[in-house]
């Protein structure tokens, strides 16, 4: 499984395989991205603006707090996602009760179908001790009203929980599918060698999942820095009390659509892109992610 086969010679058919995708990639990926980068370095008249837009963004009174918010959020979100997704996928994979694994995967996935407007109402009610199905829990934690639950200090954890609730199920399914690609013989051999569940996971399964985990971390990190949906949801549910201007991405959106200032909006997006790319590059290089092994 891990032996590296000799890589194929330059393929002549490959261009045909990727042609369709390349067309879409250029039309709906590369061109808009380049256009946005062009916006970031020009003013609204189209003249070169250097780093002016970046300076404008950084000078905004909401910019630094937003960076701080997202940093806090990222800690909660990444730690939770990696530990719980990999852990739950491994547990599910070991589950030998027939049908239970399939049912649980379905249940874990369920919230993934709820997006945007659909879940505004869910959170408005779940986080309001007066009407919440987990009201007893909220009251036990000392919260009597919706306003107390969405106090500024609680927001990073709340957003991470919301993001995990909607997003983790999909990743669990992906990880589970990936675990299935590990040959049973390898696991059997490990068992005969006397490896317990923990040993097997640590020495065989997790290393073999490396690419999947790297892919998840890259996307989750970028997704985390681009935090938008969760604060927007809570902001809508609380009529603006919590979550407005919370993240840089929201700020970018405000610049683009509230102030009709696409250029500064693009500058913030480019900054987020660069952060995401730097982290991605580190992971890609250290994990051999691009090797066609």
């Amino acid at each position, binding site marked *: 499984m891990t032996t590296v086969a000799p890589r194929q010679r330059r393929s002549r058919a490959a261009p045909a395989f990727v042609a369709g995708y390349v067309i879409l990639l250029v039309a709906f990926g590369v061109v808009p991205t380049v256009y946005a980068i062009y916006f970031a370095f020009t*003013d609204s008249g189209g003249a070169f603006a250097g780093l002016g837009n970046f300076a404008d963004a950084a000078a905004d009174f909401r910019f630094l707090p937003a960076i701080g918010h997202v940093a806090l959020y990222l800690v909660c979100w990444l730690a939770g996602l990696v530990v719980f997704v990999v852990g739950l996928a491994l547990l599910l994979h070991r589950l030998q009760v027939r049908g239970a694994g399939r049912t649980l995967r379905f249940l874990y996935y369920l919230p993934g179908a709820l997006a945007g407007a659909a879940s505004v109402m869910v959170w408005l009610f779940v986080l*309001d001790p007066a009407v919440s199905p987990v009201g007893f829990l909220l009251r036990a934690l000392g919260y009597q009203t919706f*306003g107390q639950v969405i106090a500024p200090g609680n927001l990073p954890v709340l957003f991470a929980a919301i993001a995990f609730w909607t997003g983790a199920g999909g990743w669990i399914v992906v990880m589970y599918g990936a675990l299935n690609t590990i040959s049973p013989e390898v696991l059997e051999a490990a068992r005969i060698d006397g490896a317990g569940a923990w040993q097997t996971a640590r020495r065989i399964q997790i290393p073999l999942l490396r690419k999947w985990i790297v892919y998840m971390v890259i996307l989750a990190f970028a997704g985390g820095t681009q935090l938008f949906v969760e604060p927007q949801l809570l902001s*809508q549910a609380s*009529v*603006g009390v919590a979550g407005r201007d919370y993240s840089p991405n929201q700020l970018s959106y405000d610049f683009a659509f*509230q102030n009709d*200032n696409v250029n500064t909006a693009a500058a913030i997006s480019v900054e987020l892109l660069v952060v995401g790319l730097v982290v991605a590059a580190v992971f890609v290089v250290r994990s051999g992610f691009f090797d066609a092994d």
Partner: protein
Amino acid sequence: MIRSNLVARRRRTATLLAVAALTLAATACGAATSSGGDTKGRFTQAPQSDGPLTVWVDSTRLAAAQLYQKQNPTVKMDIVSYDGDANGSNYLQTKVSLFNRTGNGWPDVVFSSQNNEATWAVTAKFAAPLNKGLVPQSLLDGWAPNANQPCTVDGTVYCLRNDLSQTVLWYNAALMTQWGYQVPSTWEEYEALGKKVATEHPGYLVGAAGDTFTPEIYLWASKCGANHITGPKAVTVNATSPACTRMAALLDSLIAAKSMSTSSVFSSDFDKNEADKILMMPGPSWYGGSLFQGTFKTPKGQIAVAPMPHWADDKNPSVGNVGGGTWLLSAHSAHLKAATAFLTWVTTSDDYQGKVAVGYPAYAAAAKTWLAAQAASGYYANDITAPLQAAAGQVWPDWGYGQFSQEAIWAATVTPGLTAGKTIVSMLPAWQKAISDYARSDGYQVTQ
């Protein structure tokens, strides 16, 4: 200070550039050109044609467009329902800025549930000036005093007000009589009664201060100068004057006495625990139908209206205002005649505004018909006509509509503190700073 002023100035320059660029783009595309005119208020009409009239409305105003279509079957209409910019979605602004880039696609007439559309629609050259030949001045004079002020930039009217949301004092007439209380006419009496209720009937409420529009009910009525729009891109913010602090202190004292709720009247918490404990509730004209009748399902014959209280030393009573939508006409419209006819009908006709509309019509004659219909419904315990009509003329004009959302600013700055037990008085400086910051980031020149 100096630095932020510089930034503000640069922003303004950027805005001007943006406007210039948009104009250039529009001309270059050979589209309906609005030749960035030298004289204010005039615009070059697009070549007129016969196509269908495109009308954008929210779901509530869909009824208006459909009724017009039914009454005028010969008019070709393309009715599009959108979110009406509810909750500051900025949908209209977003789409107009995209249309401005592409040079086509603008709707002819638009309804918005926001009052501040003129703040960007004029610089974006979308809103057509209405009092320069399209709508006769005699008709415009029929609106309630100052109703079209949010639509007016430098004397030119760019939109028409759909409904007014003047504030009054709602109260439970049955309870007031039963407990032998007098309806307060001054804020001093109001505060005294609030404290009395707190001791005599604990749990009952004389108001709520947990909504995002709390400042528009109380501080606006108290003539607090936190939001004085002095020009197209200029605002004076003074949230710590006596007019502000004495109202804030009144709210604080009643919150401490627990006869003023800090929950939003639209929250589940309020609906479940406090909705049946309302003795009095200062609030906008739509509280009657939307809140008491619709949401709380308060039985018939209990709710009554009195004029908003005023300070004893203030000889000119004033009230606040919470919302009310506007209608805009596109400067790019190729069907100006049909568009103007629809606009006039939808804002002034008795058939719609008087008999169908949900809010208090901003057009005074329609408001009479509307009030008569309300009185005929028999829901209210007293005659609501006189207090509402009087309040319609008393909305304090020095609280304006900027591009920034006062409600969002209050919600984000003051509400969390209120929940955490801070007093409103102690948060007024922070509120003032937040308003100034948001105004500046929208390119406003801020005076404090």
